[in-house]
């Protein structure tokens, strides 16, 4: 997993809950790099799970909720750092472009990157189905990112999980524009 995911997470935790919580998380999770993350580096996604899990434990917030929040926040970072990927007309066309354009471009820069699959199908002007697939099973983060994207495009959405296989390896998401 790209370092930026870790650095942004810790920044969010620092901003929302303060440095002590950050330190506590680092101290109490056995992290491979002892909490040292560079945004251009690559680290084990297991460490990410550990940190999210620890935060959930400390703050008594369910993990999915944490991931949702983080996803929304993380989208802002991404949209800021990669303006070229934001040249779409609306949310749906943007979501479509993830699988078709964005991820292939990412792979050009970072050939070793492991990216989730986002197969999309636009059902109507207001409805779209997006199928998330990844061995890391972080569909909740995806939901957060989608929410973030909606906000960027000034849209309001309702996201519903309509299918799930292999404990979250494949998740079907129904996105409704409201």
């Amino acid at each position, binding site marked *: 997993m790209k370092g930026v995911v870790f650095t942004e997470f810790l920044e969010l935790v620092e901003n929302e809950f303060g440095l002590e919580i950050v330190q506590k998380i680092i101290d109490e999770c056995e992290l491979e790099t002892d909490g040292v993350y*560079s945004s251009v580096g690559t680290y084990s996604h297991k460490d990410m799970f550990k940190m999210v899990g620890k935060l959930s434990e400390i703050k008594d917030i369910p993990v999915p909720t944490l991931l949702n929040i983080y996803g929304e926040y993380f989208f802002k970072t991404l949209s800021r750092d990669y303006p070229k990927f934001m040249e779409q007309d609306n949310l749906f066309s943007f979501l479509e472009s993830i699988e078709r354009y964005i991820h292939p471009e990412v792979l050009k820069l970072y050939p070793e990157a492991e990216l989730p699959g986002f197969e999309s199908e636009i059902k109507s002007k207001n409805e779209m189905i997006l199928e998330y697939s990844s061995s890391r099973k972080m569909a909740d983060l995806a939901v957060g990112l989608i929410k973030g994207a909606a906000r960027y495009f000034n849209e309001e959405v309702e996201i519903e999980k309509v299918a799930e296989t292999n404990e979250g390896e494949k998740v079907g998401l129904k996105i409704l524009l409201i």
Partner: protein
Amino acid sequence: MDIELYKKALDREKRARKEAESLLEKKSLELYNTNKQLQEVITNTNLFPEENPNAVMRFSAHGRVLMYSNKHADAIIKFLNRPLSKKLKVYFTSELGYSFEKGVKHQFDMQIGKNTIRFDVVPFQPFDYINVYTADITDIKATEVSLQKLTESLKEAQQVSENFNKKLEIEVTERTKELSASEMKLKKSLLKEKELGELKTSFVSTASHQFRTPLAAIQSNSELLQIIAESLHEETSKRFCKITTRITSEIGKMTELMDDVLILGKLTAGKVDLKQQDINLVDFCIELAKDFNEIQSDGRIMEIVTNGKQYDVKLDPKLLTHSLSNLFSNAFKYSVGKNNPELIISFQSKEFVLTVKDYGIGIPKDELTKLFQPFFRANNVTEIKGTGLGLSIAKEYFEINKGAITAKSILGEGSSFEIKFTRQK
């Protein structure tokens, strides 16, 4: 407490920064190496068209601007840019434009100075340029032209040959017709000849028989006169005798002549058969010579000489007698008062030769060829008796016996008659 936290956070930042820096260095090195490789590839790639022995060029879309050309293309570019080549340049550009618009490869030939160049135009639409590859086909063109000329010559030659053949066929057909006609004519002539021959033979035979009857009558009457004359006065009797003797002699001549004519007629009509036997030629000739030797009043004889190993020969004895007799008779007749005539019998491996030689009056040179013609007598024998048929009959007899006779002579010195026979095994 706070300070500790910040210290730790700072420390983490530092370490993260260092990590980022080393990653950056790594990436820079990678980039540098990749760049280097790329440069090499570019250089090599650039060299590639330069190494092409033919001209290659790259033009912008529609062939408007020359983007690249290798050194071999310089000559072509120069040529196309001459003021004289304006039309050619327009044509060239239009060919490129056509290829680009249609998005298809296109080929055309053009004369650049003394050479014929083949242009292969390959458009690359996604990249908006046109590649032009060339080949010098001057030699190929020359060969093409020669080939065409050759083909034309060949066609012409074929035509001539065909015409000639047709003519030949016509000629052959005509000739065949002619030949058939000639054949027909010949057959007819032959038939006629045969008819004439037979007519002649029957005529000759009839005539001579008819002549004999009155001759016989004359002879017997002459003999009667002879008898009556014996009872007359001696003077008158002598005179009568002279006359009757002359009559008898003339009748004799006539009879001889008619016999000869009859024989010749039979011979020329092919009515004399060959009956060959094995003969001892030397004995045969000796016997024949004896008959002649006995009747020579001056005592001359036919001298016989033989040479070569003797063998028996196959000849018709009757015909041989007739023909040799004629020669012997002539030999004695035309050499009165001269040396003995000679008969030379020569036996050789494949032929045997009889030569009758005399040392008499000889035969004039220009008359040798006519000697064997019927009724022919040389101009120097008017004093000597003869029918003029003897040699022609002898020649026929010899030829039936499969011999060939030739005559040689020197006027005033003598003559020799040579008969060659092929030895029959």
